[in-house]
């Protein structure tokens, strides 16, 4: 079809077939759209039922008192007041903040350093990757039971080893001063494999010419890392930082299985407190209120973080 014919004004006899063609096209388009929506519908139903509806339900539960059998009562902000009045909530927030800080200080640089070292290894790279990733495939409960033995103040592996060089014994999980850090050590070991592999993949994507150019300019190892590798990894580092921030704020398995929140609430985290509200005390409304507060905090933190690092990750 030429441009000439397209621009020619339609005569009355031509208008009818053109209008019919347009209507047919519209019908076809509508059917395509319906088919698209029908294909989308299963995913929407599944997400709606198992993700969005529970979120809405959790939010409304924060304003209700219920025993899950009888009709729920609306109680306004009572659940939020109860949570904010609970001294344990402040302890849980403080502990979670310390845990996040320790995880960032210990757990965040560890995989980056390890990946940097591993990227230089030529022989047995596959074996090292396998060994680093191995803890990720060990079920968390099994890993924690294993580490519980490592940490045993009497006959544990760590105190036995340290004892050979005249150190310890240390109480590890039994002391309010070392319990939280002990949890961070285990979770760093358990979760590091995935981050190492992501860093290794990102490092493999850095053009070799950049390193060569830096080397020709007389850069040493540290300057090549600082001025070439790290800037190239910025987007990945930024993403992993956010993921780690969100996952460490939601820490639950480690304090639940290692210490139950003790000693003296030293490892009581926000999620463990939510669990206690809901499943030990049966205060579902308070659990939902604290969950809502945590979700809002996470959303604000994520937004601030993304805004702050937007330009950083683009460069």
């Amino acid at each position, binding site marked *: 079809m030429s441009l000439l014919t397209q621009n020619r004004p339609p005569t009355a006899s031509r208008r009818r077939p053109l209008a019919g063609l347009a209507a047919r096209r519209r019908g076809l388009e509508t*059917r395509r759209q319906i088919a698209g929506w029908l*294909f989308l519908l*299963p995913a929407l139903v599944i997400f709606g039922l198992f993700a969005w509806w529970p979120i809405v339900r959790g939010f409304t539960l924060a304003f209700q008192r219920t025993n899950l*059998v009888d009709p729920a009562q609306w109680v306004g902000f009572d659940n939020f007041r109860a949570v904010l009045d609970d*001294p344990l909530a402040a302890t849980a927030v403080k502990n979670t903040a310390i845990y996040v800080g320790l995880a960032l200080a210990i757990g965040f640089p560890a995989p980056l350093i390890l990946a940097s070292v591993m990227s230089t290894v030529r022989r047995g790279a596959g074996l090292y990757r396998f060994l680093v990733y191995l803890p990720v495939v060990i079920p968390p409960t099994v890993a924690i039971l294993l580490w519980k033995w490592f940490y045993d103040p009497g006959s544990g592996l760590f105190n036995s080893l340290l004892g050979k060089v005249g150190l310890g014994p240390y*109480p590890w999980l*039994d002391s309010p001063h070392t319990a939280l850090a002990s949890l961070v050590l285990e979770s760093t070991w358990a979760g590091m494999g995935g981050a190492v592999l992501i860093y290794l993949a990102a490092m493999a994507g850095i053009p070799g010419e950049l390193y060569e150019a830096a080397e020709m300019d007389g850069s040493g190892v540290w300057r090549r890392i600082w001025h070439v590798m790290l800037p190239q990894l910025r987007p990945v580092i930024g993403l992993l930082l956010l993921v780690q921030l969100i996952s460490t704020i939601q820490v639950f398995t480690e304090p639940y299985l290692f210490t*139950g929140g*003790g000693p*003296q609430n030293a490892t009581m985290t926000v999620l463990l407190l939510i669990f206690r509200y809901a499943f030990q005390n049966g205060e579902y409304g308070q659990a939902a209120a604290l969950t809502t507060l945590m979700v809002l905090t996470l959303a604000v933190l994520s937004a601030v973080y993304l805004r702050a690092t937007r330009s950083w990750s683009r460069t």
Partner: protein
Amino acid sequence: MVRISWFVLIAGCVATALTAAGCSSSASGSGSGSGSITLHVQGMPPATDRAGTAQFQQMVADFEKANPGIKVQGSTNVYDPMTFSAKLAARTVEDVIKVPLTEPQRLIAQGQVRSITGQLQAWDHYKEFNPQILAPLSDAGGQVYGVPQNPYAQGLMYNRALFTAAGLDPDKPPTTWDQVRTDAAAIAKKTGKAGFVAESKDNQGGWQLTMMTYAFGGDIEDKTGGKYVSAFDDAPTKDALNLLKSMRWSDNSMGASQLNNQTDVVKAFAAGQIGMFLGSPGTYRLAKMTYGMTDTASFGAAAMPQAGGGATLTGSDVYMVPKSVDAKHADAAAKWLIFAYALPAYDTTAAAEQAKTLAADPKAAVGVPTLPVFDAARQAQIADAVKPYVNVDLSHFTPYSSSLAALKLRPEPEFEAQKVYAVLDTVMQAVLTDKGADVDSLLAAAHKSVDATLSADQK
């Protein structure tokens, strides 16, 4: 083009329909159209417990024969706080649930279980129930919400082999807390094992401190002006905690690891690592059947050591009916509870039959002493009936059973016990993990915290 579009449209419809089918409930419901009902009950032993499973199946067959129209579907599930709420909300929880005695008061207070008083009262022997056993399963108005199984009083479980190794007489376990301290120190010194271990996490620290407080003559809660307040900030609880502190830090007789729950303790006891712990004779079953204790001849049970209280805490497994169960199923559930758990504690023939089936498996533990569900005379008759099938060395439980009559049996704190235990957990943990812990200030802080919680919950 149009044909393809129709094909795509139909495929989309099929995908949607499949999703909808996948999301629809697959529960068949527990009733049937012919007037008969199916009762879903917790409490079926796991398949690995062959004798227990056989006995349960026999019980189901006998019940169905005696109650035409009721089918019983057993489940190895037990009450799990992590799944119970969701199942209750979804109305998929079983018609009969098995809960530990630490839970009934909370479930009653929250209205999550049904009263079965009317159905129980219709049973001929209802009035013969031991009121002390029913008290923890009842509300303030006298409504009863469950039936107990194997009720017990807490006592001192001890390793007879470690007693012997430490130069102590295993037939004369401690009867006072001073003796517990002396014996624990001897065990730790002579064997290198923990002389005595106390639980301290998952609310079990508070639970154990409650046992000790009762034995020292104290109380956890008091009712003043119709409201519950804490009552543990006084001499008995302080003495109990100071004793533990001395054992932990001066005698070094409580082992190295202090953040333990009952599972940790029984597991270590079954492995011969612990001299004494506070528990029930039922932990014999746990040690033998779950944690593979081979040297069961070393298991000894004594009554709760005393320090002026003359009392001990009671416990049991309890079978209850969730509130979500309809009236028809609740009636059938009550019939099952009486048949399966009350009758074998009353009827000698039923008790003997159960014991005989259980004794077929050498791994089972038959004859572990329990508290009387009815009166002492009835309990004695039951004990005689099961005697031929007993496979535990009852002489090792004599220090326990011979002293029980002298003790007052006390239930858990009546109001919000779990919340109180959670606070007392931190006190126990402080005493066991901090050498410089100040018992007075710890209890004062706990008292303030518990009172604030109790007050808020009674508004």
